[in-house]
């Protein structure tokens, strides 16, 4: 059985179910649990659910410490950029302790943060910081694009024994979708094929999955069948599903909201160039955000972001039906 929920509510449902299931799960962060009548406070009490000051270094460091001591904290960070205040804890503490102690300890924390809020939030609240985190051994990174995956990936993240950066896309916040009832786990490292096709492989993450699907619809009207793949987690990254698709289609166009050299796309392009070179009938093309700080003004913001038309043009380019433009 399933029920319809907005993406953001699906995440909340997963946290709630995991807190019911496992009393070692803690949930805390800024601007939550400030009144007695909030559902999480009501259900789980103020030992496990707490408001913190604006103190990201302490919030994330405390999560690491509580995890070392046997708990499973979920930190509500709101904005991915707020993690940057605590870079050391995120990138050089949480993911290191397991290895440095020879496997004596584990750090099962979830850093929940929204990202990619390209809706006039200008330069410091709009980043798609995926590339920054996916290259850190020891960190896992989930990037759900649907309400069902939002729930299933959060549940998996909480049960995972490693630090997980869970990035939910702000532009998807109110997108509705069918969400399985009760326990729902989406495994890490298993891509979803969102649309099957034989002519070109499109890979998107988060918000760009829908951009790729929209482009695929437009291309279908021209007789071009695009396959659309959503990796769902980028660390671990399911390169196998992508390679198998490219073997079938011979063409690869990558769609990413991040700036090019910090994008998931560039990593996938490298993997496919190395391991799928013989399948490729044309160069890989990346449709990414331009290498710029996201501008405030609406037309400028749109200019630096990927969109359906840019994807369509890139596909026409790799298929030789138009000059390569990307």
């Amino acid at each position, binding site marked *: 059985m399933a029920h319809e929920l907005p993406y953001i509510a699906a995440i909340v449902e997963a946290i709630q179910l995991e807190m019911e299931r496992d009393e070692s799960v803690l949930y805390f962060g800024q601007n939550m649990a*400030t009144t007695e009548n909030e559902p999480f406070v009501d259900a789980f009490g103020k030992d496990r659910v707490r408001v913190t000051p604006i*103190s990201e270094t*302490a919030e994330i460091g405390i999560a690491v410490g509580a995890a070392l001591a046997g708990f499973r904290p979920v930190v509500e960070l709101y904005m991915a950029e707020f993690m940057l205040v605590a870079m050391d804890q995120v990138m050089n503490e949480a993911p290191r302790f397991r290895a440095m102690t020879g496997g004596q300890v584990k750090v099962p924390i979830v850093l929940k943060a929204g990202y990619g809020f390209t*809706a006039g939030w*200008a*330069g410091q609240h709009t980043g798609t910081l995926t590339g920054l985190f996916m290259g850190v051994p020891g960190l896992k990174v989930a990037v759900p694009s649907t309400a069902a995956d939002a729930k299933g990936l959060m549940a998996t993240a909480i049960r995972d024994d490693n630090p997980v950066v869970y990035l939910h896309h702000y532009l998807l*916040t109110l997108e509705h979708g069918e969400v399985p009832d009760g326990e729902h786990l989406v495994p890490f490292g298993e891509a979803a094929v969102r649309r099957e096709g034989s002519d070109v492989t499109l890979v998107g993450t988060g918000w760009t999955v829908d951009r790729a699907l929209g482009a695929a619809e437009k291309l279908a009207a021209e007789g071009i069948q695009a396959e659309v793949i959503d990796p769902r987690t980028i660390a671990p990254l399911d390169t196998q599903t992508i390679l198998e698709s490219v073997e079938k289609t011979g063409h690869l166009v990558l769609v990413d909201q991040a700036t090019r050299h910090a994008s998931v796309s560039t990593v996938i392009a490298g993997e496919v160039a190395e391991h799928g070179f013989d399948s490729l009938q044309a160069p890989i093309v990346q449709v990414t955000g331009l290498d710029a700080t996201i501008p405030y*003004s609406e037309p400028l913001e749109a200019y630096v972001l990927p969109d359906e038309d840019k994807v369509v043009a890139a596909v026409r380019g790799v298929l030789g039906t138009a000059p390569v433009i990307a």
Partner: protein
Amino acid sequence: MTAPQGVETLDREHLVWMLTQMLRIREFEERVKRTFEDHPGVIRGHTHLADGAEASIVGSIANLGPDDQFFTTYRCHGYPIARGTDPNAMMAEIYGRRDGLCKGLGGSMHLTDVANGFLGTSGIVGAGIPHATGAAWGAQIRGTGQVVLCFFGDGASKQGAFFESLNIASLWKLPIVYVMENNGYNVHTRTEQEDANRAAGEDLSVKAKAFSMPGVTIDGRDPLEVYETVRGAVARARAGDGPTLVESQMYRLSAHGNIIAPPGVPLHFPEHEAIEKFGAPEEYEAAKQGDPVPAFRGRLVADGVLTGEEADAIAAEVREEMQAAVDFGLASPFPEVETALDHVYA
């Protein structure tokens, strides 16, 4: 610290200037707020208003000399107005237009006016505190008597950046004044829920003790008390005696910001958190009674500094000025899209 001296220590011109700036800030921000209803979609992202902080802003900025500098939070519209920045360029920025202060690239949260000593605004809580401290180091090196004002909120004083910066500033005796605007709320959280000093019944200025610098708590709704306190702190900084922490207490009269929602949902300012979240409308109504703008107007009229008619005439001029800013902002074209890449590197 110099005790507040009251109206009699300042001349009429200065007092009327203060009232005028407070009215200008309030009117500008009312226009920003109204834009959400009158022109939906023109303002994007997140916008924060400083109604309730006008007295503190004006009383502080009034102490700056022409070469002095200041840094603020993303709740940043008031300071440049008091400092003399063109409100047309500010409104055009908030509307994302070509003639904006930052060419439409920054928006409401990142106002900057280098010519007036306003060197940049971060959208990250507390991040501006070390920036201001660094500018104060620069002032110390130049040795020309410059002072830096650093504005931040009560919430920011729980960031590591606050503790680290104030320690260095005191250690190096930097020429800086830290003005902590305590408006009672960090976003949706009350100060006593997130501040150990407040929870223990102490003022937040006690934090200064940890850095061996003077700390003082004042009524930030009284522009003259703010003026006198910051005046003393600026004099101390200019004399090379180091920083001061001023906790300026006030009440934010609008919600933290407009609602946070993805495109398609109309943005607006919700009710204040006291009402919407804590079910305490009486707290909000009491705060409204302490609104510093009408209070200062009433005080100047009662003291015979200016007549009610004169105050009304100033308010009318201010309304005209800020209507012109709205008109200017709406008429300004969007920037050329390629300018998105103009300033990635210097």
